[in-house]
């Protein structure tokens, strides 16, 4: 059963991919969706047995690598953390599979799409069930591949190809860090098996390694390298640039991969490595700062973007920042809690946005929408619920998880914790603001689309709405239901050994004990103010934003251009790399290697051949002369040689 839950999607992907002509669209949809639904059902059972029943287990499939000290197997590790991820992945994936029936209805390669989706699901499951780092890396790269394939799904579009490549390349940077981290782990611990590593972490707590002549704390180095990998996958500041561009992919892909599951792999991985990070406080501090900054930075950009999917993408980026700074203050449980609730409401938002785009004849610019709430009431409602959850309004899912995160940041009682708390609260305000900006501009006001589009506005078919409603349930109740298990009173029995927190680091415990009342209330107040501000700006006095943009033009441009990250990277990396490449190509390869190598040798060969040919004059006395000279030279050689 455990194995089937993981491998059914792979089987389905292979069947749908390789027999797509035979199966047809409907066959492929049935096979893949059926498999993922089965997997989701099995995951629920697994969750019940492992997390609630408290029976973690590891299933070894087969030996994989046995090379010297490096011993590892394909093995599936099921503990609470894995079980939570299983639920998130398979359920959201099921919703997205079903939703795709409607959304991709007009596409001409449906089986390919479904096969990719199932392949992604399998890879994600491999990632979360990995019992060693290499296997995790396999899943990690596998989801990267699936993400690449799906972002570039409409490969006729140059922008989709560019976005796919960008996602892949930026992720390579992170993956390089991850790979180095794995190497460092093996170097230090002599094993890549998670259980072995965790067992021996305390022994190496004080170990240092010398690198570049400087002594480094070994675990900090490892933690930092692994976090670089997590930054790439989870689009944290610096390596976030691929995520907004990834919105080129079909919207169900954005919902599944770039909101709910793959981008949270970084959060999952760092949480999985919690026993190690607990001994690397410097690495945790770095994570806190990066996470908090990302949360704030992405929120600011989200306030001015006009593409409906990009707004949500920056929101995703921002929310991932929240999860990371929760990890940074050792509240892994809170991070995973937010991961779970976020998966539901963010997938809901994306699929809702997809429904809007569907209704608006593939229009994505919110400036060209408006006044459609009556035409698509169900979509409108679920978007409201999703945004309420995102903004963290009681009693929606986001309230429980986001508030906990802000509380633990405060309760961590450290400099970086306070930094995270301040930025987090400001981010929460902005989150509420841009969510309602999106909502109001999309659904209210006068219609700004042309008449043709407005006449075609229609509610999506039930095959798309049903997944929305399922996710709505998640967005409504996931926080309330999960609170006690994830971060409340029951958390110790719930998590078991899946997550380790040193006692003096236990910020959740601190948060429960000594948080002043205003800290609990502040985020809610800020959020409501953000919503109110959005109403003032976009509902009641629509002239304000334009005036503000004129007045604060540099700031507006700065935000609109996403802090100029793309431009900066273009100058620093892309152009330099291109110049370097051009230099190597023209100077190194063309002039030097080709010139001295093949071309040069060929030219020299021709030259020598010509000379040899010229010697062959046809004159008898030349030939005889050559012979005599030859003999004379040999005799002389011999004489000189002998004398010498």
């Amino acid at each position, binding site marked *: 059963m455990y194995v089937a839950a993981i491998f059914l999607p792979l089987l389905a992907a292979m069947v749908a991919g390789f027999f797509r002509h035979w199966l047809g669209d409907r066959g492929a949809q049935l096979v893949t969706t059926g498999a993922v639904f089965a997997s989701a059902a099995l995951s629920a059972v697994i969750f019940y047995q492992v997390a609630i029943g408290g029976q973690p287990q590891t299933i070894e499939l087969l030996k994989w690598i046995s090379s010297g000290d490096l011993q590892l197997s394909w093995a599936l590790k099921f503990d609470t953390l894995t079980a939570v991820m299983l639920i998130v992945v398979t359920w959201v994936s099921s919703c997205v599979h079903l939703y795709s029936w409607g959304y991709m209805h007009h596409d001409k390669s449906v089986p390919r799409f479904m096969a990719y989706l199932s392949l992604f699901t399998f890879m994600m499951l491999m990632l979360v069930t990995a019992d060693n780092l290499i296997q995790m890396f396999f899943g990690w790269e596998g989801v990267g591949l699936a993400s690449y394939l799906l972002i570039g799904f409409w490969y006729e579009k140059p922008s989709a190809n560019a976005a796919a490549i960008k996602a892949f390349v930026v992720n390579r940077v992170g993956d390089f860090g991850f790979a180095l981290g794995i190497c460092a782990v093996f170097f230090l611990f002599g094993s890549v098996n998670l259980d072995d590593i965790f067992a021996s972490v305390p022994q190496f707590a004080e170990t240092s390694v010398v690198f570049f002549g400087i002594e480094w704390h070994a675990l900090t180095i490892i933690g930092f390298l692994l976090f670089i990998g997590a930054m790439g996958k989870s689009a944290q500041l610096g390596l976030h640039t691929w995520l907004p561009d990834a919105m080129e992919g079909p919207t169900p892909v954005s919902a599944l991969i770039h909101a709910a599951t793959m981008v949270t792999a970084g959060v999952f991985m760092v949480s999985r490595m919690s026993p190690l990070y607990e001994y690397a406080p410097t690495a945790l501090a770095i994570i806190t700062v990066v996470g908090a900054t990302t949360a704030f930075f992405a929120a600011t950009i989200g306030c001015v973007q006009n593409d409906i999917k990009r707004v949500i993408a920056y929101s995703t980026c921002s929310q991932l920042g929240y999860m990371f700074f929760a990890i940074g203050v050792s509240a892994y449980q809170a991070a995973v809690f937010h991961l779970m609730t976020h998966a539901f409401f963010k997938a809901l938002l994306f699929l809702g946005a997809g429904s809007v785009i569907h209704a608006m004849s593939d229009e994505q610019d919110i400036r060209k929408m408006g006044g459609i709430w009556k035409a698509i009431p169900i979509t409108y409602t679920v978007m409201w619920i999703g945004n309420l959850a995102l903004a963290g309004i009681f009693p929606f899912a986001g309230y429980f998880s986001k508030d906990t995160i802000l509380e633990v940041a405060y309760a961590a009682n450290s400099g970086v914790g306070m930094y995270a708390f301040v930025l987090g609260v400001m981010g929460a305000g902005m989150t509420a603001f841009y969510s309602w900006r999106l909502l109001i501009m999309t659904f209210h006001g006068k219609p700004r689309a042309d008449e043709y589009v407005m006449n075609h506005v229609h509610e999506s078919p039930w095959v798309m709405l049903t997944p929305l409603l399922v996710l709505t349930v998640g967005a409504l109740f996931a926080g309330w239901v999960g609170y006690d298990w994830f971060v409340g009173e029951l958390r110790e029995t719930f998590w078991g050994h899946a997550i380790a927190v040193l006692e003096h680091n236990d910020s959740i415990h601190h948060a429960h004990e000594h948080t002043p009342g205003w800290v609990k209330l502040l985020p809610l107040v800020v959020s409501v103010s953000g919503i109110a501000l959005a109403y003032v700006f976009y509902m009641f006095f629509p002239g304000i934003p334009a005036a503000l943009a004129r007045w604060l033009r540099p700031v507006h441009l700065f935000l609109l251009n996403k802090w100029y990250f793309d431009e900066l990277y273009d100058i620093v990396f892309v152009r330099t790399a291109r110049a370097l490449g051009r230099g190597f190509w023209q100077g190194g390869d063309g002039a030097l290697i080709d010139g001295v190598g093949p071309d040069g040798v060929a030219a020299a060969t021709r030259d020598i051949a010509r000379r040899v040919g010229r010697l*062959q004059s*046809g004159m008898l006395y030349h*030939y005889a002369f050559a012979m005599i*000279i030859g003999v004379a030279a*040999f*005799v002389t050689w011999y004489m000189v040689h*002998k004398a010498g």
Partner: protein
Amino acid sequence: MTSLANLSLAAPELLMAAAGLVLLMIGVYQKGDATRLVGWLAVLVMVVAGVLVLKGAGTDAGTTFKGMFVTDAFAVYAKVMVLGASALSLILSLGWLAQEEIKKFEYSVLVLFATLGMLMMVSANDLMSLYIGLELQSLALYVVASFKRDSVKSTEAGLKYFVLGSVASGMMLYGMSMIYGFSGTTNFEVLAEVLSEHQATGVVVGLVFVMAGLAFKVSAAPFHMWTPDVYEGAPTPVTAFFALAPKIAAIALFVRVMTGPFADLIGAWQQVMWIIAVLSMIVGSFGAIGQQNIKRLMAYSSIGHMGYALIGLVVGNEEGVQGILIYLAIYVFMNIGAFAIILSMRQKGRALEGISDLAGLSKTSPLMAAALAIFMFSMAGIPPMAGFFGKFYVFISAVHAGMYWLAVIGVLTSVVGAYYYLRIVKVMYFDEPTEAFDTPRLANRVILLVAGVFTLFYIVYPSPLLLTAQAAAKSLFAY
């Protein structure tokens, strides 16, 4: 009373000498054209001589004619190759003579005598017998080179060959006289004894002259200059003959002289040999690049091949000699095949020699093109063709002897050489076809088939050649 010379050891040579005279008589007294009859009889004589050589192979090595003539496994191996190459090229020649309507039975007799000279060279155990064999061979070759008397090119080739050959012979004689003067003997075995004790400078200088003469015969650089002109000018079957039998005989002689009487002087001649080998490889590979005439190309090719074979002699040990012997055997098959095709390059009865005439051969006669491609790949030394192994054995012997540079230069020049061999393949397979060739003669086709099969499938069953060559090389180092 000294006992009578043991004639049985020289039975093949005696047979051929007698047969040559008889064939001459037949040719003169035969009414009508005797070319065909004498030709096939000459082939038969060579075959019988070959059988006699093989029959003698069982007996132990021995000398006769007062130590001037030696028979050992090495001689047997070389003689079989010489006789085979001569017979095959004579068969090819007969077809050509018929096609060109040249009715001169003397051709076959001359080839027979040249072959006799070669057998003498191979068995020479004395500077005197060496010279007699060499001259008998050379004189016959001078004549066949200019056999097409009404062709300016052919007579020019014959004359050039004659003059330069004389220079070489003169140098060699001069060298021999010096050797005799400083050592007091011409017999190889005695020379070896003398030189093992005392090595006079005069002997070494004389040896350099002898080497020059021998290098001329194998057309090794810098004594190669005659080769392209003579190959191009001589009638094509003569070119084929030149490229095969005399080369084998000369190399065999070269090996016997250097590793026999002058073995102890290896320190002196090794470096000279090194230069000769390297120069030959370079000239052979670079010189061929600009050529448009396929016979000229084959001339440079043979210069290069001699360079590779001489690597084994530079190494100068048993392994090196074994490499040479294998190389030569493979060389015979590749070349006889290539020449069988060159001799079949005819359009409406007119013989062609240009490389461009091969254009599109793959479309007009695919089997011929495939065969030539096999030979060219083999000559370029590309596995799994036989030519690769020929090169491999000599290179590996150089590597085992620590002569890395020699092997490296050999490999590099093979790369250059591959260029012009592959160019022929390219012309055949990628250029637009011209007119189709005439159907080749049966004899050519049979030879082509045998040579092609050997070249392609040598890799499957290499051990007979390997073991025979090993035994032959061993016999040379027995004393």
